[in-house]
């Protein structure tokens, strides 16, 4: 009886987590919206070493620690991270590359953010 209760608890926990994560995902688009980029500075870096969505969140956590960074969205499919700066903030390339390395990935070249081109 006790074992069945433990199994039931485990299954319940998995289903609750799945529904909450799927729901959160809809409100969290990969790239920064056009509206957001009109007043902020956006930079984009190639990043090598990411191979799953879990790598994305690890890299985003590191990059968001930089003073002056408002948001960061990484994509293992695109092999890049898009970094949104706070208005007026400047962040050195060395600092960004250091954070990418702390996430155990390798920074590539700085590329133009897709949304900047619009």
């Amino acid at each position, binding site marked *: 009886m*006790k074992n069945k209760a433990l199994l039931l608890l485990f299954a319940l926990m998995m289903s609750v987590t799945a529904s909450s*994560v799927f729901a959160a995902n809809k409100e*969290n688009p990969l790239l920064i919206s056009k509206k957001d980029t009109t007043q902020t500075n956006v930079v984009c870096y190639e990043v090598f070493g990411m*191979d*799953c969505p879990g790598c*994305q*969140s690890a890299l985003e*956590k*590191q990059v968001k620690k930089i003073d002056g960074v408002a948001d960061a969205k990484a994509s293992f499919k695109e092999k890049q991270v898009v970094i949104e700066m706070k208005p007026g903030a400047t962040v050195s390339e060395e600092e960004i590359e250091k954070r990418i390395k*702390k996430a155990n990935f390798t920074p590539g070249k700085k590329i133009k953010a897709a949304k900047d081109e619009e």
Partner: protein
Amino acid sequence: MLLAVLLSAAFQTKAEGISVDAGLTPAQDRIIVRLQYRNILNQMGSNDMVMHMMPVVVVYGLSSDVTVMLRNVYRAVGTNETMMEMDNRFMDPFLMGKVKLYRHNARTYTVGVAGFAGTTFPVLNNSLSKTYSPVVGVNASYRPGLWAFDLNNAYEWINYNTEENQSAARQLQVNLAVSRNIILPGIDNWILSPVQEFSFVRDNPAAGESSSFGFISPGFQLVSPHVKFETLYQIPINSSKTALDYGGRLILGLRFMF
């Protein structure tokens, strides 16, 4: 005593089983919480023994090169038709450190090698014996594109008794996991990853004959940026030649990544 050692080895719930981060160390300050449920069926003669193991693992990236891991397991006894006295309890905690030895991230692949060392600690009142089970190993990972090849190698001294200066058994484990990420259309940031694992275990008890057995384990993972679901079914190979006949093992897992 031999039986106790066999049982101890049989109920280990180590990193093998969906061990996809083998040779790679996580990012600095990364926190990973891993919950698992393992249904383990063993037979001793014609007597069944069903165990429910629930390991909880907490991983923290001290730096990009060094990771620490703490694991504890709750064991619930299902069916026990043997003469062994088994109770529901927490097993000894296990502490492990993993160090990055090599990593190269290229545009089309990633290669990583990491070494690790850890041990159980007999800190609980219900520890059967005041022994340690130290383990050392080297893991390697090769990730070309959407594929992943992870090789885990570990050598363990099971129930090492510090007073007697010897372990009850030594065990070599080799585990290869092959998986491929499948990008799910219409669902951003989620991937499905079928996994096939091959495990080889060589038992060398202090007394009695050595034996080898293994598992062939198909499974899959569903991965998002912060949550990973894992399931694996371990099919035993050659275990009937060991004193304890291992049956199939179902593993269900949930991993949170912060």
